[in-house]
């Protein structure tokens, strides 16, 4: 009796505090983008959506954000897999087991500022190169922040996400008895390389797929890192949405809400994908 009522209460609270505000927010954003609500509403119109697609590189923004997130994840997951598989014992005790948590304590904006100071042409690394006579002036240092290839953003994303994935993989190695499988494959004659690529990595990736997708969503929607380390063009989705919502022209606000709707659609699709992949992960 108690658990049934408690369950109902939990569902009610989830609905009242999480689902309802979210749905209300999406509904409001949709109505705003269609000119139906808002202090400067004009009546039902597709004008704002049309403007968004004709006057802005909105598609480029979505692709650019996805590309930055995908490359960051690829680097971060690969490096984390390598660290976790080669050094997983070291994370159980000793200094490394504490140090690995350090980057996790950095908020995005602090990490972005740190890498701006570290990687820019007049930054710490550039000064060091100059002192060591590797470069002749600060202009000789390569463009690593606000750069064409998003290197500054990718490095910062990796700095923040590698410890997370290392801890996740180390945890899976221990709980899923990966080492036992590795020993088994070794006794069956597989080399260590083959064991890693055919046994450990597929198991770890499948197990962590929901987390990888969630992290993709997180990187895709990041704001502080691209606003400081990204370029003015193309912009990431969040930077573009905030510009529309918060900069000078009030008449741009409906376009900001339209971007928010598009973003929500993308994120929901990814979450559906994640729920499916979780099924795969648990079936394993």
């Amino acid at each position: 009796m108690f658990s049934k009522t408690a369950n109902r209460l939990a569902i009610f609270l989830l609905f009242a505090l999480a689902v309802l505000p979210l749905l209300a927010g999406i509904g409001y954003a949709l109505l705003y983008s269609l000119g139906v609500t808002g202090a400067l509403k004009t009546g039902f119109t597709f004008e704002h959506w049309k403007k968004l697609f004709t006057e802005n590189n909105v598609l480029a923004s979505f692709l650019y954000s996805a590309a930055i997130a995908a490359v960051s994840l690829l680097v971060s997951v690969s490096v984390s897999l390598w660290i976790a598989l080669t050094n997983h014992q070291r994370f159980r005790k000793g200094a490394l087991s504490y140090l690995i948590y350090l980057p996790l304590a950095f908020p995005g904006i602090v990490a972005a500022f740190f890498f701006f100071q570290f990687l820019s042409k007049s930054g710490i690394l550039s000064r060091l190169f100059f002192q060591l006579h590797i470069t002749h002036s600060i202009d000789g240092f390569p463009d690593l922040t606000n750069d064409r290839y998003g290197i500054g953003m990718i490095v910062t994303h990796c700095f923040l996400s590698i410890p997370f994935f290392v801890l996740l993989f180390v945890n899976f190695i221990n709980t899923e008895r990966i080492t036992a499988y590795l020993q088994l494959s070794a006794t069956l004659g597989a080399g260590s390389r083959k064991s890693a690529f055919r046994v450990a990595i597929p198991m770890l990736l499948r197990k962590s797929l929901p987390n990888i997708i969630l992290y993709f969503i997180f990187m895709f929607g990041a704001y502080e890192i691209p606003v400081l380390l990204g370029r003015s063009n193309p912009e990431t989705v969040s930077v573009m949405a905030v510009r529309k919502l918060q900069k000078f022209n009030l008449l741009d606000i409906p376009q900001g809400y339209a971007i928010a709707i598009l973003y929500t659609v993308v994120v929901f699709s990814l979450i559906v994908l994640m729920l499916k992949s979780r099924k795969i992960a648990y079936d394993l």
Partner: protein
Amino acid sequence: MKFADIRTLLLVIISVIFLSCSGPAEKKADTANLSWSQIEQQAKGATLTMAMSMGSKNINYYMSNYAVPAMKEHYGITLNIVPGQGKTIVTSLMGEKEAGKEVGQIDLCWINGETFFQLRQIDALYGPYVQQLPNFKYVDTANPIIKYDFQQEVKGFETPWSLSSFSVIYDTARVAQKPVSMQDFETYWKQHPGKFTISNDFSGMTILKSWLIELAGGGNALDGPFDAAKYEKYSTLLWAWMNRNKQYFWKKGETFPASGTVVSQLYSSGEIDFCLSFNDAEVDNKVAEGLFPASSEAIILQSGAIQNTNYIGITANSGNKAAAMVVCNFLLSPEAQLRKANINTWGARTVLDLNKLEKEWQEKFDTLPKIKHGLTASDLNGRVIKEPDPQYMLKVFDDFRKKVIEAN
């Protein structure tokens, strides 16, 4: 836990939600027909929220260690300062208006120009009330920069607080001959590629507006309401000039920093030779803090120094407008203005006409520490120009993105 307990728990949760949704105490009557002593009476014990930019430690110190305690001590008013500027304030007030909230979260806001224009657009400011403030008699009302906020007549809807002049800061040790005209800048950029940039924000847009004015003939060429034909004519020249020269900008003009803070940081680290400022005492303050080289100086551009006034607005849905007026009156007092004008505390130019003050206050203003690196009153004499209509700002911001940033 029994069902009755759960029902009680639910009741508590729902009540908490409702209570947290309801606004502060009752709404006080408007103040138009009250005498100043009645207003002061009504203000006693009020709690107010003021939204303002909190990006400078000098400004924060002035507010939290001087204005806030003074309001408490003299009038029993609790003044809470919250961060918020420009569109954040507009969005918040718009949201409250759309939700039909009679008593809002914000009572006072620090605004100017385009925010004033937007807040008037959505009818979110209270007024006219400024003439009722006893200290308003000291204000330099003859100054058009104070009377008009971005070409819009203020009409008593915001209290002038301080004057700010736009300037370009440069390092005399690195830049042999200071550029003033667009031609001078072009020459400098070609000789020193990568050493100049502008931010994609308010200060960056102000230098673009200054150049637009220079192209239009300088001085008051863009005064008056927005003129689309004029804008089209001169902005076409401006974008062509920018596109021709942006290859000599920082990062080859392929990207522009999002904020003026980043530009200042690039200047202080020596990556670029110039930065932009809208704060008269900024160079002196930053030199004193060791952030800028001591050889930094400020430049007035060929078109003149765009000057504007920043103001305090009272929101139309403030719960206690009388108390908000008392705060405005205090911030306008000779004592508060004197303290704010001191470059060691903040260095914001006063909006008061010193000739209207008593001798004692005039002397105090005269003995304030003088600006050494930034623009002095004599530098600015005859060189000040008004902000053009806010529509110019909106158009410049949009077109800079479309015609320069995205034209790569």
